[in-house]
């Protein structure tokens, strides 16, 4: 899968991007399903439309946040606080922010991508993506369904796993030319 940056490289404009290819595969799949089961296809298409309408404000938010990060948060700051030289403070900062930061992958992925372009190291990006599970706003719901004891035990294990996950991903994924991530 090529990166979005690579797909936008001048001179490659006429080539179909991987994202567009994926979208066209889905369109083809819907058409295929539609031939055999029109009702299922129509229901899935209607639900997809409704979901996309709901996601529009989210995408607006993503665009705004990315534009703000791009403008106001400079590479020096990221490099210092979340880059190679950040040390344990970087880990603590990412663990804390990921627990309170709202949003779906649609928000988090583009934002992290922007930050990695500015120096966020990949182990911290992995920690951020993992630790979204221990979301402060979700904990009351988890407590409601499974009880306080279960919620506390699971949250502690997830925090530990987030750190281990960051270390492993940071060491194992030696990056291809297209990422811009730092080790």
């Amino acid at each position: 899968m090529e990166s979005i940056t690579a797909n936008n490289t001048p001179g490659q404009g006429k080539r179909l991007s991987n994202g567009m290819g994926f979208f066209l595969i889905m369109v083809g799949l819907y058409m295929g399903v539609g031939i055999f089961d029109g009702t299922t296809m129509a229901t899935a298409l209607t639900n997809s439309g409704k979901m996309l309408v709901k996601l529009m404000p989210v995408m607006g938010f993503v665009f705004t946040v990315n534009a703000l990060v791009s403008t106001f948060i400079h590479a020096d700051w990221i490099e210092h606080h979340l880059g190679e030289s950040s040390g344990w403070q970087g880990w603590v900062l990412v663990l804390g922010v990921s627990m309170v930061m709202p949003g779906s992958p649609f928000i988090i992925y583009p934002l992290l991508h922007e930050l990695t372009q500015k120096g966020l190291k990949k182990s911290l990006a992995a920690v951020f993506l993992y630790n979204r599970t221990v979301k402060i706003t979700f904990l009351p719901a988890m407590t409601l369904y499974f009880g306080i004891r279960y919620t506390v035990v699971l949250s502690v294990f997830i925090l530990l796993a987030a750190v281990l996950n960051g270390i492993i991903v940071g060491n194992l994924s030696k990056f291809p030319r297209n990422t811009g991530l730092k080790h």
Partner: protein
Amino acid sequence: MKKALAQMKGILPIMMGMVMMVNLVMPVVMEKYKSLFSGNMVVDSIIAAIAGSISFGNPVTSYIVGRNFLDHGVHVAAVTAFMVAWATIGMVAIPLEASLFGRTFALVRNMTNLIFSVLIALATALTLNAL
């Protein structure tokens, strides 16, 4: 601003594809979940982690499904593996993740998360038993 626009242009078709995939596959998958479990804590945790990893949606939805499993006698380890995998693994989102962070990062991260979801589930179940 131009950079943010270019990024959005790249993300939109992937996002639309993901949404289409979720709405086509999820209703079918959700119906099959309950018949997957065998009663063995370890095996069920692995099955549940795989099931959770191909699911997509708000984590609170996984709590509702997980509670339902628990009420139908599914082991707490399997329920935990399902919920952790649901929230930490994004099989559906791999195209988006790979396009932004690289294929290696996306694959290593998601595979590691799959293993961790089983380990966390077993550790949680054993800890709860011991407490």
